[in-house]
């Protein structure tokens, strides 16, 4: 308690310098929080997405990764093959679909078309889907547009949507916002999309299983029975995504570490300078009877205090920044991509403190080791 008063007095006695150092740590911490918030946001979005996903197995051509749109490489016969296996494996429903991506770095110029077979509508893809205007089924020749996509491209009922030079379909339905990737999708009849792509193939089979079925096992059996396919279960996709996110986290952490090290050096510099300037002061304290630990603790507390205050401000700034990012991404793609989870906030605070500790140890050691007579100077 008393130590804090001394720390506070000294930091405020050199206010400008302390403020700049504090700001440096805050910026460093905030940048780390923001960098890592993307991983956390994606994680949360993915978990929510997977939880709402209807189909439990996605069958795609071998070599397709979990995140890029599958190319139409599954031949029509394969549908029959899978349907033949369905009763035995506990597959309730097989929905073939075709996916077409037109992009676009900008969300307004990228389009993700989902071709659904007759008898299927967006709810087969995403059960909570609700229609806000028009109808939910794109058949026989319309397009049902996700809420975000409709808003971004001003797609209202009856507006024409050009898929290619020859093929144009009218918007027949707009979905309610779902806070999911579905908000950015456009559902069209599969026949239409196949015509555009000039193929009779499918891009993906969405399989709905009996609740009692063992998803992983069905996936393995399917892959064994039909060569050339990947059967991805939702949990598998999650695991895959988690791995990708981890790697991303590491890279982002590495980048932000640079900022943090700079912040740490700032603290070290501030504390070192202040130790140097206060040599006489420490001499007086020691002369009065302060032990070395007292001086050590005093100096270390200063570094820790700076790091703590900077870290706190940084986390707060990170939370604000993350909210700002989400404001943008929600508008753009309908997803909150950034999240400052409690564990991220704690982790960032811990890193800031560790840096403060590392930056304070050497100056604290120096300050506590100056011989008293030397610290007092020639009197």
């Amino acid at each position, binding site marked *: 308690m*008393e130590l804090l008063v001394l720390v506070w007095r000294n930091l405020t006695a050199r206010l400008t310098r302390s403020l700049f150092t504090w700001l440096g740590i805050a910026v460093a911490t905030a940048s780390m929080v923001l960098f890592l918030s993307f991983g956390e946001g994606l994680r949360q979005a993915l978990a929510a997405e997977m939880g709402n996903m209807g189909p439990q197995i996605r069958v795609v051509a071998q070599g397709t990764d979990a995140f890029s749109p599958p190319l139409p490489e599954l031949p029509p016969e394969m549908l029959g093959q899978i349907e033949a296996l369905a009763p035995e494996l506990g597959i309730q429903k097989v929905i073939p679909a075709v996916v077409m991506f037109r992009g676009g770095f900008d969300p307004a110029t990228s389009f993700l078309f989902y071709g659904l077979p007759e008898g299927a509508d967006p709810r087969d893809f995403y059960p909570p889907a609700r229609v806000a205007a028009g109808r939910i089924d794109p058949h026989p020749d319309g397009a049902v547009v996700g809420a975000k996509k409709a808003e971004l491209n001003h797609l209202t009922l009856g507006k024409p949507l050009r898929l290619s030079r020859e093929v144009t379909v009218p918007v027949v339905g707009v979905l309610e916002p779902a806070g999911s990737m579905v908000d950015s999708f456009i559902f069209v009849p599969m026949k239409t999309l196949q015509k555009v792509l000039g193929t009779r193939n499918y891009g993906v089979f969405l399989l709905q299983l009996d609740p009692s079925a063992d998803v992983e096992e069905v996936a393995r059996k399917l892959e064994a029975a039909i060569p050339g396919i990947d059967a991805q279960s939702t949990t598998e996709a999650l695991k895959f995504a988690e791995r990708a996110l981890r790697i991303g986290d590491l890279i982002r952490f590495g980048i932000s570490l640079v900022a943090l090290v700079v912040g740490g050096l700032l603290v070290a510099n501030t504390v070192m300078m202040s130790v140097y300037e206060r040599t006489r002061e420490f001499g*007086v*304290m020691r002369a*009065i*009877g302060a*032990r070395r630990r007292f001086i050590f603790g005093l100096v270390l507390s200063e570094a820790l205090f700076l790091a703590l205050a900077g870290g706190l401000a940084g986390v707060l700034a990170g939370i604000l920044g993350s909210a700002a990012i989400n404001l943008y991404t929600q508008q753009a793609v309908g997803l909150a991509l950034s999240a400052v989870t409690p564990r991220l906030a704690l982790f960032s605070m811990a890193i800031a403190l560790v840096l403060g500790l590392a930056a304070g140890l050497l100056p604290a050691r120096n300050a506590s080791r100056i011989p008293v*007579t030397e610290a*007092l100077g020639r009197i």
Partner: protein
Amino acid sequence: MLRARELSKRYRQGEAEITALDGFSYDFPPGATAVVGPSGSGKTTLLNLLAGFDRPTAGEVELAGVRIDTLDEDGRAGVRLAHAGFVFQSWNLLPTLTALENVAFPLLLAGVSRLERDRRARGLLERVGLASRADHRPNQLSGGEQQRVAIARALALEPTVLFADEPTGNLDSAAGARVLDLLLEHASGERRLVIVTHDLDIASRAERVLHLRDGRLVRVEDDAAI
């Protein structure tokens, strides 16, 4: 009690060796003892050793019944806190603390509670006539006032020995006289004051005067002898 036996301090400077203090022995009686001598004669060196700021190259120092020459830094700091106070020529005070906080600092180190610290520090400031300056920072005080705050702080834990190195060196005669009175006031009963000075008038107010020359104790003037 304060006693030195065959106390020596040598500084090595490259090849050369400087003997700052050479075989100093003296048993300081209660009351005020002045130490005089030309510049470089070893007065400050002696005070540093007596107060335990530094360790002697040879010899013994006993302060308040403890052989401090054998103690490590922190051990000496402990003895100092409990038994010794000091006043330097200048820059005695911690610049970021108020007068009151400066006086309370030794009490803080000694673990005295906040309220009690405050109460005692106010009493001490009153004793040196600075009650009205309690909340001033050192840079808002005159040199004489700063020295009086330093005295109040030195007295905070009621030390048995008070060390002062040229405490009036930077003051005019009126302020200096006031500081000296306060110091001498403390040197009564069993308590001791060791005061280093150039000023023979000041030295004459002590009960005895030690003369140093080239690190050696060359003469002891006693009240009885004067």
